[in-house]
């Protein structure tokens, strides 16, 4: 039995058949979309893992250098040295469309192009370790930006895949079987009505014949009685 009450009419049947066709086409398309998204996602995630590992290692190294530098300098001096950065970064964000998912593309511009110009302090009062730390930070920054882009992409793709997967499953396991069952129910009901109609007609025909026969019989009996008199 169908879960909801439906009208077993021909119009409903045509409508349902149309919907089933659309659902099946949609299901196929969504399935293709899911597969392609998954393929792209896998590539992104692999890159993401490798990049994250690299960035984390480099950052931990840079933090180590900073710790050494801060051990050699007083905290006030350190802060003073880094207080007014020479370098500044401007970020441009554009969007790329990956299978109807907008993912960000970052492009950044730095004010200072010369890598030797990034140190915002004079070298006289700071230790050499600080220079190492800052240059390590600067070298890892490029990767950090790439990591941001890839990680965001993978998060957005994961969300889209989840949505698509749910839709595919809903269509495949709920919607389409339900419609097929409804169509079956209507066809059976209509066939049943058809048979009932035929039987009724046969029955009516029988009754009419029987009536006519009895009438005829009564007439002949009457005629026989009259001729006997």
């Amino acid at each position: 039995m169908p879960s909801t009450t439906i009208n077993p009419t021909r119009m409903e049947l045509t409508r349902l058949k149309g919907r089933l066709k659309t659902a099946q086409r949609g299901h196929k398309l969504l399935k293709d979309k899911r597969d392609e998204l998954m393929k792209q996602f896998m590539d992104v995630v692999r890159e993401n893992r490798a990049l994250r590992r690299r960035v984390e290692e480099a950052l931990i190294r840079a933090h180590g250098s900073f710790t050494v530098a801060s051990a050699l300098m007083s905290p006030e001096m350190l802060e003073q040295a880094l207080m007014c950065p020479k370098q500044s970064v401007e970020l441009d964000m554009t969007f790329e469309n990956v299978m109807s998912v907008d993912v960000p593309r970052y492009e950044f511009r730095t004010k200072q192009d010369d890598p030797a110009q990034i140190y915002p302090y004079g070298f006289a009062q700071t230790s050499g370790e600080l220079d190492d730390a800052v240059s390590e930070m600067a070298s890892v920054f490029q990767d950090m930006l790439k990591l941001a882009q890839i990680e965001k992409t993978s998060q957005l793709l994961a969300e889209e895949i989840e949505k698509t997967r749910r839709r595919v499953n809903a269509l495949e396991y709920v919607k389409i079987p339900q419609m097929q069952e409804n169509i079956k129910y209507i066809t059976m009901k209509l066939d049943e009505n058809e048979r009932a109609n035929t039987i009724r007609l046969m029955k009516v025909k029988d009754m009419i014949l029987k009536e006519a026969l009895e009438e005829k019989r009564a007439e002949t009996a009457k005629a026989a009685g009259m001729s006997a008199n």
Partner: protein
Amino acid sequence: MYRIAVLGDKDSVLGFKALGLDVFPADSPDTARPILHRLAKQGYAIVYLTEQLAAGMGAEIARYKDELTPAIILIPGKEGSLGIGMEQIKTAVERAVGADIL
């Protein structure tokens, strides 16, 4: 024009200042939370967040996960990596595929 922010404890974020990023020191998740929301409103495209802070800010990070901006990227603080960043990649895979297949 978008900007990049770094959110973390004072010692961890100091180095990023030299690179010209906008640095916001916060010592605990409680102080970091309002800063993060403010940054999200102010048009920061990327927020680098130390894992030490991220450990106590799961709900906030999840909230911005599906938004285009900001991208909240976890970085190890000066105490080292807690593995939350890697864990997040794993969660993303599980979310998409339904199982961890890597």
